[in-house]
């Protein structure tokens, strides 16, 4: 058995074991989590990207800001794959799932058998169905290749238009602030990060970004591209030499749906992250799972969620007690703003400002008189306390 394999090929054929498809945070954590939980059988991890799987959050932050010199970390060093007997197939994508035969089709045409399959295939950048916004015409930022492509475009770039004022779009704007590149952020909604945070936190970050020189335009509808410009629905031309689309992601459910698994906004799972086929699990950005902090199943895009679901599935598959889920949490780092969220708020939940010093902002979110989330800007201790204190919405039987 070899650890790293540069080609898309099965390293050993003795027994099927557990196959994990997708080598992002969830997939890698699950593979190593199986060993940590004492699982002794075969573990094979397949990743569509070339090279050793690495962290993504720094791509839109320190990696971009340092123009690629602060390389993002691999989740685990290469030596650890050998030592922990994780068979890793790099540059190898899943093409099909034959659930009857428990056999996977891989992108190089080979087949791979599994006893248990963990789908951690993540999500793809949303593509805008607009003229001039097709693949290859605009930049995106999700994986290392995306980040390298963006960085390669920066020298000589004068104006960048960013479509979408979510976490990624704003992190990019902050990382490029002061670089001499004029950044315009175009957002269809009335405020930044509207799906994720309260109006108060949105306003705090709108001030921050405008103060850093970003041209932030809210409530605008993008219509098309023309050479050197993005054109809005009202005819306004925004000069731009390059366009980055950061308009959210869509979960990669096509293969799962084609294999007959139940899907919606993600692959549907139960409390133990099992899909509608008990031999197949789904974790991370691709999974839509019940959550104790929400009334209905949710699909969460966060490092914390990916690692937690990975560890729970690893424990379950190793026959160990499954650790309890923790309060969901998220972070974003934009310029002088370190934003953390604990708990799951919905846009309509009430907000109550607890502290607002200009530098620090603390906002509680309430639903039916109950604290459901805490949003903090530059207030780590309160965030950490909230991660212990926010009570679940429901406790499964």
């Amino acid at each position, binding site marked *: 058995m070899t650890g790293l394999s540069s080609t898309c090929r099965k390293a050993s054929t003795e027994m099927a074991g557990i196959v994990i498809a997708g080598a992002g945070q969830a997939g890698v954590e699950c593979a190593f989590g199986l060993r940590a939980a004492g699982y002794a059988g075969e573990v094979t991890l397949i990743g569509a990207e070339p090279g050793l799987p690495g*962290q993504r*959050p*720094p791509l839109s*932050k*320190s990696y971009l800001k340092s123009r690629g010199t602060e390389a*993002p*970390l*691999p*989740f*685990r*060093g*290469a*030596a*650890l794959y050998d*030592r922990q007997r994780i068979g890793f197939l790099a540059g190898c994508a899943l093409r099909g799932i034959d659930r009857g035969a428990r056999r996977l089709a891989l992108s190089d045409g080979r087949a791979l058998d599994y006893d248990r399959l963990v789908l951690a295939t993540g999500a793809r950048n949303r593509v805008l169905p607009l003229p001039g916004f097709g693949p290859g015409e605009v930049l995106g930022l999700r994986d290392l290749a995306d980040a390298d492509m963006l960085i390669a475009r920066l020298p000589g770039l004068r104006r960048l238009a960013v479509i979408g004022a979510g976490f990624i779009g704003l992190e990019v704007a902050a990382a490029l602030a002061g670089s001499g590149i004029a950044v315009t952020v175009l957002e269809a909604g009335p405020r930044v990060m509207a799906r994720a945070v309260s109006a108060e936190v949105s306003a705090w970050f709108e001030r921050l970004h405008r103060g850093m020189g970003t041209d932030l335009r809210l409530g605008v509808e993008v219509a098309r591209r023309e050479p050197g410009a993005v054109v809005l629905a009202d005819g306004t031309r925004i000069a731009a030499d390059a366009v980055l689309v950061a308009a959210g992601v869509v979960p990669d459910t096509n293969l799962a749906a084609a294999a007959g698994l139940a899907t919606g906004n993600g692959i549907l799972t139960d409390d133990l992250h099992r899909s509608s086929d008990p031999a197949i699990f789904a974790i991370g950005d691709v999974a839509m799972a019940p959550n104790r902090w929400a009334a209905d199943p949710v699909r969460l895009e966060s*490092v*914390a969620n990916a*690692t937690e679901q990975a*560890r729970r599935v690893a424990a379950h598959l190793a026959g160990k007690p499954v650790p309890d889920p923790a309060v969901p949490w998220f*972070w974003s*780092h934009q310029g002088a703003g*370190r934003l*953390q969220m604990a708990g799951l708020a919905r846009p309509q939940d009430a907000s109550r400002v607890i502290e607002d010093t200009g530098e620090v902002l603390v906002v509680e979110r309430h639903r039916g008189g109950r604290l459901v989330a805490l949003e903090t800007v530059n207030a*780590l*201790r309160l965030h*950490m306390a909230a*991660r212990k204190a926010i009570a679940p919405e429901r406790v499964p039987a």
Partner: protein
Amino acid sequence: MVQVHFVAHDGTRTSVEAEAGTSIMAAAVANGIDGIVGECGGAAMCATCHVYLDPADAARVPDRAEIEEEMLDSAAAEVTGFSRLSCQITLEPGLDGLVVHLPQSQH
């Protein structure tokens, strides 16, 4: 290159060499040191890179910044006067030969 010695909770010692300018956490992860996770990638957001400085070395490491103090409060293992977030310590030639001890768990 700067050398760092990691002493696991069970006493196993692993020495790694890293380029000056990398963090201790980055050096550990790149070299497959088990006891350091580094879940947030060094953003001081997760406290899964908690280490203890060897008492003999504590004086030559720069003091904790406020953000590190705040974050250490939530480390999984016991926090002592020698506790540090290893992502916040940059390896410089002056830290060559540093000995750090790993906690039993980061979660």
